[in-house]
């Protein structure tokens, strides 16, 4: 569905080409000041006023939600006669201390398509900021696709000003929850990253858990109790087709795609023992990765596919371990060679490790002193940082650019779970919009 929609969006370049300027935000800095940016409502032609207003709002909301931008209040604007074709009066924007200025316009074409164009200006540098080496961007699409255009504009601005790839034109798959705790209904659901367009993907007759997005296709893997036996399924979002993954005895759970989307890691439990397997989605051949009487579960593969981080209680309590995907021994950060190296030694229980798309960090759930935390740790087990704390914080997943972590939280005992996000730096902890209680969020890749 999305591929088809996106094929209908044409990206064009705007003419004119001033020199490259240089305002940026360092997103890695611990202390920082949000970048002041003005995003006046896009001008509208030919009855596209509603689209202009809504697109501008979505862009402002996207950028503000990162905590990296301070959106200049409209009341402060001096120049009111902006046009995408005319250089803004920089002095009018300097005086209200705005570093960056977005000027855009919308219009409807004769065949009823929506056209959106914008430029990003460096106010103090007094020049246009090039986007993919062009002095502006223009999109043409069917009008009902306006929201995705807005997210693409946000991604473009975010990328230009931070140097990081974007994550606004993405979706979140999650478990929508309702009903009393002792008889909870859990449905697979999906929404835009900002909470718009929520949809249920399953009816709620069977409990479903732990959905994960394929990094390469419109596909989800998750666990369902359908048929009275918990097993891992694949779900194609475009076709709605659902299938059991593999022919395992016992139960299968805790699935997660490899970073190339070509295989799924999962856990099989039978006879009281849980071990990790990897299944190639093309050949449907599976291979056992761990063979240990302890619980081994929650596997996550490194972006290069060479290593796997997982959860095991082989040391007596749940901790994080790293192994080579091919099963060969590796040199452990704590010394010695082994087929699996423990990387967490802090006080508490660690679980649900998820390897960052950048490869350098692992996000996890940590339980200590009666609280739950989301944290990150280096793959060598060094530099642990806790990013959150609550009665229950669980199940982190990364934004596709590795800058933001989403997870679910029960704020106090008895509170229903909700989705939250936090910047990798620990700043900007926010609750995400969902209409129901929600858990197990998983982030899609950037849409095409």
């Amino acid at each position, binding site marked *: 569905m999305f591929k088809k929609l996106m094929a209908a969006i044409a990206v064009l370049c705007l003419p004119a080409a001033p020199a490259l300027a240089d305002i940026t935000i360092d997103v890695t800095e611990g202390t920082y000041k949000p970048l002041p940016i003005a995003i006046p409502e896009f001008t509208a032609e030919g009855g596209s006023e509603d689209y202009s207003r809504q697109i501008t709002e979505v862009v402002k909301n996207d950028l503000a939600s990162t905590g990296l931008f301070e959106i200049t209040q409209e009341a402060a604007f001096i120049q009111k006669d902006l046009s995408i074709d005319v250089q803004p009066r920089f002095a009018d924007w300097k005086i209200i201390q705005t570093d960056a200025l977005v000027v855009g316009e919308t219009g409807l074409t004769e065949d009823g398509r929506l056209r959106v164009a914008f430029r990003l200006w460096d106010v103090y540098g007094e020049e246009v900021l090039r986007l993919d080496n062009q002095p502006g961007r223009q999109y043409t699409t069917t009008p009902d696709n306006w929201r995705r255009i807005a997210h693409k504009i946000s991604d473009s601005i975010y990328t230009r000003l931070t140097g990081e790839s974007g994550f606004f034109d993405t979706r979140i798959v999650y478990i929508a929850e309702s009903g009393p*705790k*002792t008889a909870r209904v859990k449905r697979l659901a999906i929404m835009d990253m900002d909470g718009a367009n929520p949809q249920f993907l399953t009816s709620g007759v069977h409990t479903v858990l*732990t959905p994960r997005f394929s990094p390469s296709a419109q596909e989800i893997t998750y666990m369902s109790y359908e048929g009275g036996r918990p097993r891992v399924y694949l779900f194609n979002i475009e076709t709605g087709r659902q299938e059991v993954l593999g022919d395992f005895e*016992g139960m299968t759970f805790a699935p997660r795609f490899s970073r190339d989307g070509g295989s799924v890691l999962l856990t099989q439990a039978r006879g009281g023992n849980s071990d990790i397997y990897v299944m190639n989605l093309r050949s449907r051949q599976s291979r056992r990765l761990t063979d240990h009487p302890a619980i081994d579960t929650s596997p996550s593969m490194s972006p290069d596919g060479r290593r796997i981080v997982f959860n095991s209680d082989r040391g007596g309590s*749940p901790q994080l371990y790293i192994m080579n995907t091919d099963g060969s021994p590796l040199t452990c950060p704590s010394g010695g060679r082994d087929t699996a190296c423990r990387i967490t030694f802090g006080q508490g229980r660690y*679980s649900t490790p998820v390897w960052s798309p950048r490869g350098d960090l692992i996000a996890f759930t940590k339980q200590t002193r009666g609280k739950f935390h989301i944290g990150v740790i280096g793959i060598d087990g060094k530099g642990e940082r806790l990013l959150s704390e609550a009665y229950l914080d*669980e199940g982190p997943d990364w934004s596709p650019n590795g800058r933001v972590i989403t997870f679910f939280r029960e704020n106090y*005992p*008895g509170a229903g779970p909700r989705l939250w996000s936090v910047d990798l730096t620990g700043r900007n902890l926010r609750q995400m919009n969902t209409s129901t209680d929600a858990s197990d969020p998983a982030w899609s890749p950037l849409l095409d």
Partner: protein
Amino acid sequence: MNTLLKASAAAAVLVGVAACASQPEPEPVAETPAPVEEPAPVETVEAAPAEPVYTGPTPGSLEDFQVNVGERVYFDLDQSRLDGDDQEILNRQAAWLATYPQFNILVAGNCDERGTREYNLALGERRAAVVKDYLVSLGVDASRIETISYGKERPLDASSNEAAWARNRNGFTQVLDATAG
């Protein structure tokens, strides 16, 4: 804490066996519809203590299993070991299953909410398997026992406190309808 709980669970069973003389113990809230309520204690029956008349559930009924045998064993935090109380309950389950061979059972492993979903799914499976293995060791045919893990997804007690967590860490034996195969 947990021992206390087990003691009271065992006491509840004993009270049931003694056929409702005193106040009924607060029964754990059952996942399945509660059994027919026991009649209020009939203190007025002071007639000659002839031979005691059994007024409990019909032997061999699901209610009989729930009241006189015991459906749940309780686990310590993070543990899947069976202690003496648990073994007593399972001994009774095995004996009951030997008496009524037409029934099969489904053993569900459950966990408290103070763990992550995925780890608890594994832990619940381990708990269900421990119960199954023990019953098999007592001679129950393995083919009569299905297991399932609900992790922390199906709490018996919706509260968030130590007592509720202790109750939610359990192995639950559900007698399957004999006619269902």
